[in-house]
């Protein structure tokens, strides 16, 4: 592997706010996207001539398009309430990973070119010119932010560093400095339909294989339908669910739920990806283009409901943005949105999370479980950041915390939450989100996971927790990689529907 070696932080008994260590991770940055990858998204292939003026102009454009950016550039008072809240600061000690300082990398340029004080008294307000050093600093530190929004919980004005990071990445993309990992993946979605680049025949084959596996395992013909017109539910799930461990166990769980409830469903090879990396690079256009695939598949297949699988940022995009971007939802009165609104069954929320779907069935007594099948597991739940701080489930605020936990408690007997200041809306990011789930950023991923690892360690010591459930494909991939670095077994992480799959009664199954 090409990455330089680094030391995994030691787990401490109690979390400690570290002293700053300037430059600790200034050497970190992801691979830069090549010309092909950039051009596929309509970005310049490499750093353009006159990039400085172009970047400043782009910043000006974004300040006029996004209220969040304009307000957050002005409203910060440098109080430092956010400074000890970011998992990357806690894990690396680099002061530029403090949210306020990360924002200041952009803010200092904003002040220089867009404010009175910055133009005439730059030394007074910490304003700075946009030089090549600053651009490189942006490229490094804006790829040490997972856009998890934890800082926004604690800021008195709700300043969301994720909005700043997205703007910075959008500016960098516009002058040709793109990140290989995210931009390549978005290109794959446009070309093939999903992040992993699984083409339709391979997908079909994978699903048939899963049908065989489930039949062998349970004796029941649980189906994994693909491209079925007229199905009631279109399931859109992260492509990792088709391919990776432990994700595929959740996919099997969804299929079993549909089977036990007798509800017809289908996957779509055109919309074979719930994830939307357009979010991570702060590109409205890319995010919209990816989201439109779901709309087209829904219209093509004539489904009545759209359900999203276990994926964190995908749920953020689906829940908050699909109505805006692709007319998937309710409450519109324009022709574009009404077209799909009329097709979908408005008695149900559109779109719905698979956890909302399963939880509803549990509450209505449609599903039965043998909870003791999960007795070998002592379970905790990791709230994924995009679900916790950027979405909702159910009818009440905070349903995104209670619904997954209620499902776990319905299918298993042993559950313990981690420390309150590390869960729900204060949850610590897994460290791999926001486009950072790549091996060229392994060091920041491992160090950023420290706070979550410490919280997990506490319940492992106190309650012998041996399973951490979560509902995000990135978290699952990140934890399987990072848990062993901290001395935990990679098999400790799994999905909520993996637990459902273990315990669910499927009806006409062969006797044990």
């Amino acid at each position, binding site marked *: 592997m090409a990455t330089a070696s680094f030391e995994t932080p030691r787990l401490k008994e109690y979390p400690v706010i570290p002293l700053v260590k*300037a430059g600790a991770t200034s050497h970190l940055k992801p691979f830069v996207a090549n010309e092909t990858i950039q051009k596929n998204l309509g970005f310049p292939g490499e750093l353009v001539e006159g990039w400085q003026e172009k970047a400043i102009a782009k910043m000006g454009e974004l300040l006029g398009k996004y209220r*969040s950016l304009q307000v957050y550039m002005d409203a910060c008072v440098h109080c430092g309430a956010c400074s000890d809240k970011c998992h990357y600061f806690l894990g690396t000690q680099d002061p530029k990973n403090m949210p306020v300082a990360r924002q200041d990398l952009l803010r200092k340029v904003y002040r220089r070119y867009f404010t009175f004080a910055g133009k005439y008294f730059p030394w007074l307000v910490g304003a700075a010119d946009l030089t090549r050093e600053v651009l490189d600093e942006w490229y490094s530190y804006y790829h040490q932010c997972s856009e998890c929004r934890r800082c926004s919980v604690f800021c008195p004005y709700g300043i969301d560093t994720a909005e700043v990071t997205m703007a910075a990445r959008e500016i960098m993309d516009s002058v040709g400095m793109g990140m290989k990992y995210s931009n390549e993946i978005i290109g794959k979605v446009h070309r093939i339909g999903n992040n992993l680049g699984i083409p339709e025949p391979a997908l079909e084959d994978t699903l048939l294989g899963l049908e065989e596996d489930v039949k062998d395992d349970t004796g029941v013909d649980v189906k994994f339908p693909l491209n079925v017109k007229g199905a009631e539910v279109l399931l859109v799930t992260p492509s990792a669910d088709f391919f990776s461990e432990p994700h595929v166990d959740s996919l099997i769980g969804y299929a079993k739920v549909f089977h036990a409830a007798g509800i017809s469903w289908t996957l779509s090879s055109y919309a074979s990806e719930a994830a939307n990396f357009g979010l991570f690079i702060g590109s409205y256009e890319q995010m919209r283009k990816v989201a439109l695939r779901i709309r087209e598949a829904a219209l093509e297949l004539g489904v009545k409901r759209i359900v999203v699988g276990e994926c964190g940022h995908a749920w953020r995009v689906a829940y908050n*943005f699909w*109505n*805006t971007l692709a007319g998937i939802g309710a409450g519109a009165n324009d022709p574009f949105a009404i077209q799909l609104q009329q097709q979908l069954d408005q008695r149900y929320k559109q779109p719905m999370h698979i956890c909302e779907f399963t939880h509803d069935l549990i509450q209505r007594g449609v599903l039965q479980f043998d909870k003791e099948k999960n007795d070998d597991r002592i379970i905790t739940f990791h709230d994924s950041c995009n679900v916790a701080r950027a979405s909702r489930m159910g009818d009440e605020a905070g349903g995104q915390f209670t619904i997954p936990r209620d499902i776990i408690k319905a299918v298993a007997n042993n559950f313990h939450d981690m420390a309150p200041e590390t869960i729900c809306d204060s949850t610590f990011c897994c460290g791999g989100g926001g486009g950072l789930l790549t091996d060229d950023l392994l060091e920041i991923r491992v160090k950023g996971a420290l706070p979550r690892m410490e919280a997990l360690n506490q319940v492992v010591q106190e309650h012998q927790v041996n399973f951490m459930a979560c509902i995000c494909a990135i978290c699952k991939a990140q934890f399987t990689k990072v848990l062993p670095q901290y001395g935990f077994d990679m098999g400790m992480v799994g999905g909520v529907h993996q637990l459902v799959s273990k315990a669910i009664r499927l009806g006409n199954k062969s006797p044990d």
Partner: protein
Amino acid sequence: MSALSLFYAALFYFATAVLVIGLGIKIRQYSRVPAPLKIALTPAPITPAGVPWRLAREVVFFESLFRASKWTWLFGWMFHAALVAVLLRHLRYFQEPVWSVVSLSQSLGAYAGFAMVVGLAGLWARRFIVDRVRYISTPSDHLMLALLIAIGLSGLTMRFVLHTDIIAVKVFMLGLMRLSVQPLPADPLLLLHLSLVALLMIIFPISKLLHAPGLFFSPTRNMSDNPRESRHIASWAAPLEK
């Protein structure tokens, strides 16, 4: 009409204009820039009616700051609460007759002056003692606190140690409001206090004091969480569908 009175009259007219027009420009800007995506920080109010409550909890109790850091909350909240009491007390210079709430707040406001300076001093001390906060503090951060403390101390000194002719000050202020320049006492402490206040008014719209109007336009705090129930689309995004 002495040159001094004329100078301070002009200074306050100028400072008021900069404050009002400057804030007006910024508030207009914040209200006109669209918020194209639903980015409420969840859990969030699920109807628009719940938003004012969330904002009120922030403005009155500094709820998020309390969760973030008890010490910062203590000093920050003390400063702001005391400031409200002090400003209320100062309304006596601009009203005749004064509102009853203003006359009732006279003794509270005087002692609030101490709380205000203690809060500010705590906030300033943090900028030296806590290494993370030291790292992010610019010269303007320090100067802002120095300015506010100087205003507080000069005011407290006039109230408790070296009294100034407050009747004449009120006549001067009421005169300004009626476009008539009245004599201003040439008391150095008073002139210092007034100069610093004018400076504060002038820098308000070009400094981080914009956090005051900014909070009300913060999309993470002022958006309701109902994206599935109601389609939210910005004016620059709607044409993409044509």
